């Protein structure tokens, strides 16, 4: 099958997939906290756009609710709350220390390759043209994990966590044209609660440790 047989909508979805992956890379490369949050919002907006395109192209109108949830949660609520927190805790100027940026980027590229090979058997038997997005969404999930691992700031870890959620939602939306409504609502509720809990934790960590550097969280060890 050739790329040219895909419809315009499918091409747009694939392009959005590529752009979402790209925002994940930008998140990994970004060293400023506020910009990081803005990129995260951008990724949410791309997810929103994908959901809209799929909702209209395939006539899945229940996806509009899911799109609205994405818009409300991932584009506005969570980024705005994070931004407020960062301003309130006065950490917006802090520049993240990352390991070796180039190494992390190449690791990220390797993860993309890995996810491609992991889902290769699926791609070969599916009928949906957007099946390739599974590889991309897996890559986004893995890159979110890499973001969590490679950063020391709690805020960035939360962004990584939410980035993984984006990847999962993307898989649900693009590869299967949306999970059943109940499940999507449930997942959105979980994300909302998680976001609030993260906010609470920031204050608790800040109060007890005086910093949001998770390197300081090293009191508990596997063995003494």
């Amino acid at each position, binding site marked *: 099958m050739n790329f040219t047989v895909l419809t315009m909508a499918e091409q747009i979805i694939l392009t959005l997939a590529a752009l979402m992956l790209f925002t994940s890379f930008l998140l990994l490369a970004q060293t400023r906290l506020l910009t990081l949050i803005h990129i995260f919002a951008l990724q949410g907006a791309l997810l929103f756009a994908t959901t809209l395109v799929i909702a209209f192209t395939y006539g899945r109108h229940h996806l509009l609710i899911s799109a609205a949830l994405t818009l409300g949660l991932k584009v506005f609520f969570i980024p705005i709350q994070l931004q407020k927190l960062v301003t309130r805790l006065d950490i917006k100027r802090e520049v993240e220390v990352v390991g070796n940026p180039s190494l992390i980027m190449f690791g990220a590229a390797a993860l993309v390759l890995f996810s491609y090979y*992991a*889902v290769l*058997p*699926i791609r070969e*038997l*599916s*009928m949906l043209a957007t099946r390739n997005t*599974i590889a991309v*969404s*897996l890559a986004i*999930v893995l890159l979110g*994990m890499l973001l*969590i691992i490679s950063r020391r700031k*709690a805020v960035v*870890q939360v962004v990584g*966590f939410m980035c*993984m*959620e984006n*990847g*999962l939602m993307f*898989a*649900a939306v693009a*590869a*299967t*044209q*949306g*999970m*059943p*409504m*109940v*499940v999507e609502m*449930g*997942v959105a*509720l*979980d994300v909302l*609660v*998680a976001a609030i*809990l*993260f906010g*609470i*934790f920031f204050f*608790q*960590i800040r*109060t*007890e*440790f005086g910093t949001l550097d*998770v390197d300081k*969280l*090293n*009191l*508990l060890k*596997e*063995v*003494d």
Partner: protein
Amino acid sequence: MNALYLTLLLPLTGAVILAFCGHMRIAGRLNLLVCIATFITSLQLAVDVFFNGSILTPLNFFYVDAFNVYLVLLNSFVGMTTAIFSSPYMAHEQSIGKVKAGGMRLYHSMYQGFLFTMLLALLTNNLGILWVAVEGATLATVLLVSLYRTPESIEAGWKYFLLCGVGIAQALFGTTLIYFAAVQIMPDNNQALMWSVLYEHASELEPTVLLLAFVFLIVGYGTKIGLVPLHNWLPDAHSEGPTPMSAILSGLLLNIALYAVVRFKMLIDPALGSNIAGHIMMGFGLLSFLVAGLLLHRQRDIKRMFSYSSIEHMGLITFAFGIGGPLATFGALLHMIVHSLTKSAIFITVGHAAQVCQTQSIDKIRGLLKTQPEIGWGLLIGTVAIAGLPPFGVFTSEFLLFSATIKSFPWLVISLLFGLSVAFAGLFRHVQPMVFGECPTGQVKVKANMWPVAVHLCIILWLGIAVPDVLAGWIDQATIMITGKGVL
């Protein structure tokens, strides 16, 4: 049928009510009351299922069969007995100023919220909701782990939140893959995540997708089970949270996650036509079993030590489900019961012991038999039971598991025996001085309610001497569901 909805609604209303009055003096009693009511309804539900077979609600939303109903019963039972313990324990914690009024409200409300999410996870037929509920269980307990607001507890809470969140996200990916495989063959998308529907079509699902999905699912739910090497959050969360929480985390939450994995295995086995999912589970299980047994020796915190013992037992159960024959499955199901009961009893005792000695450090807990004999005996008998010595129920189930292993994988028995003896040595090395030993000055008697412990241990003893026909028949039904063949 009504019992089903009541079983879910009671803890939910309890959570809402206790969110407002959780700080009052009666909150502990109220909490217990809701738990008792839930237990009664779930008993009713269990009787229903026992006599009338599986229940499927309209629209396929809830599904109760022999497999999950016994876990529902176990859940509400342990929830109830732990609530008995929790009432005086938390009152004591409040009186010494470790927890404030707001914390008590949060605690009581989330206690019920946690029970609700676990019951929902068990009863739902929708695999997506199952995920939502298991994640919800994490969210409900995460603030309880950091309830004491010490640096350690906050660290434990953060670790718990982040690791479980990241882990469980993999499970959602796996669920999405299952859904992806299902929509290819099913016209109605809304039914494509219903377990009962999927189970009927299991052999038509695409095997490669399912296998990939299972890898993500075992990593995701395995984090929740506490399988090595995904276990790091578990000892921290157990040791830093309030003890009633440790009791239900260890006794119940781990079971729920394992339940999810087994449900998925049931879907995947017919499609794959081989036991590859079982082999993955065996690998994870055996590794957890051995590593946790070794790590037991190096612990200094009593609750951490027993949480490693939980990892060890969950590893063993996962291993047994992985083997997959009727005997192994029967043993695993029985082991789930006896482990839950024993471990929650132990955590209850440990909670009292920590209050007596005002510390959780193993080195400083000494001579419990002299200070408060009932606690000392409770700890000693509980440890004997959990280590798998006869005549307790853990011995029975482990014996079954070993026989099943000898049948299918004889050479693995050596590693099982090794792990068991290492864990045994680790436990007794630490417990013996705590129980006997000279009691240091400064230990005070606390108001302890040892009834839950006594009840749990009696049940274990009973199960060890003779598994009642009713229970055996019940577990056998579940075994037939999972493996297709019964033992009896």
